[in-house]
Structure formats: C-alpha cells, structure tokens
C-alpha cells in the first residue's frame, strides 16, 4: 500500500525491523529508552507529590481546563 493511502485496513503489515532500524545507533536507543523512563519517573513523582499536596486530587483536572 502506498504511503499516501489512508484507507483503513486490518491487514497486518510487517513489524518494523527495529533491530535493523536501530542497530546502527544502539546507544541512541538506550538513551531514548532511558529518557522515556526518566520522564515517566519524574512525571509520576510529581503526580504523587501533588496527590498529597492537594488532599487526594489525583490529577486535579483544573478549572482552567474547563474551556476558555
């Protein structure tokens, strides 16, 4: 299927050959995966901090997000 075709299809395509794509830059993959982990850890640490600071409001969907 052409790159430009957007037709919905359930046909399975070959999985990206991540080994080939990333083999040449294995250390970059490790770096990107580490970045992903670190951002998640920092994010959840701040979320937990917020949970205690705001008396149990998990994500504290703020008033401001109600529109505008």
């Amino acid at each position: 299927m052409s790159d430009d075709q957007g037709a919905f299809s359930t046909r399975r395509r070959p999985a990206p050959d991540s080994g080939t794509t990333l083999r040449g830059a294995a250390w970059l993959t490790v770096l990107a995966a580490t970045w992903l982990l670190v951002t998640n850890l920092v994010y959840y640490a701040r979320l937990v901090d917020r949970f205690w600071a705001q008396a149990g409001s998990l994500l504290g969907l703020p008033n401001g997000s109600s529109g505008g």
Partner: protein
Amino acid sequence: LTLLALGIAILVLLAARGFGRSVLSLVERRAWPTPERELVSIGLGLGVVAYVVLLVGLLGSLHAALVAAALVGGIALNLPFAVADRVTLRCVAASARKWLAGRTRLESALVLIIALQAALNLVAALAPPTGVDPLVYHLAVPRLYALDGSIGFIPGNYYASQPATFQMLYTAALLLGSDSAAQVLHWATGLIVLAGLVVLGSGRMQPTAALAAGALFYAVTDVAVQSGLALIDLGGTAFFLLAVVALLQWIRRPSTGLLCVAGLLAGFYASTRLTNPVGVVALAVSLVAAASWKGLGQSKALAGALTFGAIAFATALPWYIKSWILAGNPVYPFLYRWFGGRELGPAQAEAIFQAQYFDVDAGYTLVDLLLSPFTLTFSPDRLHSGQAGPLFLGLLPLALLIKQPFRARWFLLASAVYLPLWFWSYPRLRTLLPALALLALPLATAWWTLVMHRSRWVQVVGLSVMFGWLGVSLIANARYHGPAVAAGLGLESREAYLRRVLPAPPNGFPWYEDFQILSQRLPGDARVMIWDTRGYYLARPTIWARALAQSLPVDEQADPAALVGRARRLGVTHLALPRALLADDELERLRQVMLRSTELQVAVETPRLIAYRVAGAAG
C-alpha cells in the same frame, strides 16, 4: 431527556453527513477511500450546518421549526447515496469482523481502554451542562440567540463577537430543546478525531500502533473534560485533523477540489476559536515542505499551500465581517487601538487583553518556548491546563530518531511549526490538541518500535509506560466524571444534579437556585444585569455588570445615576444584586454604587440575590 439529547445529536450528525456528502460530490468528484470520505463528509457537513444557523440567525429568523427543516433537508440529502451507503456499511461490517477475528490481545486492551473512556465521557455529556465557560458563553451566548431569535451584538460578553462556528451547532441543539445534545455533539467530535487518527495511522502503520495513537490522544485529560462539556476545542481539532486527511489526498493526487475541501475544513477550524488561524498557518507552512518531499515541486507546493490558506481564510471571513459590522471591530475586543469597539473603552480593552493573554505563568521568551513541552508535562497548572501525560515528551526523542513514514515526518514538522505559534498566542493544553493529535501518530510508531524490539527489557518498558499512563488517565477520568454518572444515566433529576454539582468545585457557581426563582418570577420581557458572567441558567436575556465598567469612564462609575442610566440604555430592566459582599473588587464596587441608587425598586428576593426593577426602564 437522555434519549432526547442522543436523538438530537444523531439527527444533527446525519444531517451533517448529508450536507457534507453533497458538498464533497460537488467539489471533488474523484473517488475517496471510504473511511476518509465518511469522516470528511461529516466534518464538512457540521461546518455547513453551523453556517446555515449563522446565516439564519443574522437574518433574525432563528426558530426551532426552521432549524428542524434545515436538518430534515440535510438528512434527505443522504438519500441519493443510499445505494452506495449499503455497500459502505457492508464494507465496514466486513472490516470489523475481520479485525475481530484477527485482533491481538494488545489491540483488544487498547480498544477496551478507549471504549471505557468514551463511555464515561458520553455519560458525562448526557448530564445537564456544567463547567465554567459553557455557562459564560459556549452555551450562554447560543441561549441568548435562541431567546432573541436572532444573532446580534451582546454588550459586555465580548466572547459573543468572536468566531464561533461550533456554538452555532449548540444554538441548533438548544432550539431543538436539549442542551445536553450540545455536549453529546462535542463528545462525538472526540470520536471523529479518534477515527481520524486510526484512519491516518492505518495507511502505513500496524493497526496496533494506529490504535495506540488514538489511545494516546484520548488519554489527554483535557480530552475527557472537553468530551463531557459543551466546549469547542475537540470540535476544532476534528476539523483540523480532517483538513489534514484531505491534504494527504491532495499530496497524492493534486486537484483544486481537494484543496477546496481541505481549505473549507481548515476554515471551520479557524473559525472555532479566535486564535485558531495559527494552526492553519502551521499546516500551510509545513505543507510546502511535505509536498516537496513527495516530489510535487516547490512552486506547485507553494501554490497549493497558498490556495489552501486562502480558502481557509475566506471560509472564516464571514465571522470577522460580522464582528466588524456588529461590534465595530473584526477581532473584538482586541487590537482596540486600530479598530476601537462598541461599548468598550481603551482601558477596558487593555484589561481584557491582559487578562486573556498574560495570565499564564510560562514566560514569553525563546528559552520559555523551548521549555514549554516540559512546563506542559510537569507543571501544567502554570498553563491553566490539565495533563497531557508523560508519553508525548517521553517518546519524542525516539520518534525523531527512528525512520518514520512520510506522513509522520510531516506531522512532526507541522507540530514543530505549531508550537511557537501556539506558545505566543494562547498557550493552553486545549489549544494544543490539534498538534497533539498529529504528534500521536509518530509517537505511536516510536512506541511500537519499542514493543517490537528484540530486547525483552525494552518491550517491558514500552508496554509499562503506555498502559501505566492509560490506566492513570482512565482512573482520573472516572473520578472527574463520577459525579455526573447518575444524572447522565437518567437516575438523578436535572434539578437535583445541578443543585448538587454547580455550587461545588470545580464549578463554584452559587446562584443556580436563585436564578431558578428569578426565571419563574421576573416578567417575561425582563433583561437582567447579573453580577457574574455565567448567565446560562437564568431564563432571561442577561448582561454582565462588568459591561457597565467596560463602557463608562472611571469617574462616572462612582455615580449611581450614571450607572443606572447606562444600564437603562443597555436595555436592562432588572438588576440581580447579590446580598453578600463579593470577592471581586470591581464587581463589589459596582454593587456598592448601585445600592446607593434611588431609582431601584425591589422586585424579587431570593436567598442570595435581590432583583431590583430599574425605574423608567423599557419592558
């Protein structure tokens, strides 16, 4: 009421599909892939319905019967396509069966999470309207139009003079008798964005990754908030994404018709919010590069982008002309120095500008711009926003590292152009939703690369971060929409729900009960000045007390006779003055001055308000 809301929303969507399909067959006759055609038709049609309501309103003929007739006409327009539609339905059913037969556990899990989120959002949308901005203008202004039977200038409520394509659909829903239908319509646009992402993703990605893109977008907490309320940014995002769908078709087989379709959709997006034209600029600029990558040639790409932008501008133009004629300023109340504005002074215009554009705490420098993805991820409060989650920032480096399909590269570029325009115009998570929708696809490709990696450890990281965030978002959604479930399912009455929910955070609206009493006891032709901006639940035309401050010099604001005279000239017949002190300094000062007036007579008393009749007022 729940069934009525669902029914009206379905009627509007069917009419939209009829209008849109007809427009599509007129403008671009060549065959479209079926899913793209259906989504683009509905998007075009929603814009057409909105503009029909705008036209009828400007002509002063906003009546339920006329709107219903227009919708019936739209539904009838589906008939010529009935034969083709039977084939389409069979194809959709076959695709669904095929997917069900071959689905993986990962896909099932993603679909289940999306379905749970969508169900929660729908239940919340079926409940009576709450929120802040819907009661200030998204629903309040359509309500005023419906009461007046026409679209005109509303003093004080400057939002009413800004482009409001989506609010026209809400006007139709209100005229047909259901405000919850407006919320359901907005919820439906969330599904259109989801379907658009899956369709865009399925062209080049694994279905699993396409579903992950949808799940990633739908997990943004502002999407849950928007889906349950009559807001506008999910609707705007739907128009935006469908314009991208049409532009991809144009890149593949350039034609003026396809540019028209994309431009119309981008114009509907641009006219959904005053600052939305920045998204059209981002699309047009990035389109030049994207079309060149596909070998279209730079001059052809540039001509296409300019044509696309011009059609989008022309589509949004009626809103600016309307505002110029009715309010004296095409971008009312901004750029006052050049255009001025009706019932507005320079100091007040400046105050509104400051309040709108300098109330976030994310800075305005280039460094602040570069840090904005971090601010938005880790400190969204500083942008008065909900949570985008950790994955947009977390997956971005990998998305830039791996080999991406053409469309994903274009989406990365478009998002990069969008970011500074967003940051220096109206930086909130909800106004970034179009860019997040585009980003979701290359990020999902990056995520899929992790999941398919040879290393078990990398796979576990990929799966954990995705399902960890989707789970947290689902819990947050359940907590946020929880209070609306009983009302949304019809198990709690509208009255009981609103009395319970409106005074509590995050709504903090204390006047519901009082407004209900005033709605019953004030004369039918009363025009009421309120000491709040949320007039939706008062069934009379309302004017904000702030409108007085906006239109009078400061020295006259201390004179009760001047204030009452001004209110009278604005057509106010009654003042709904709070009994207690107000926290807002300006409103409290106006209240104190008004209380010294000798031209007011008590008309109705409620627990928290006293409604005074203005002596000598019309009506």
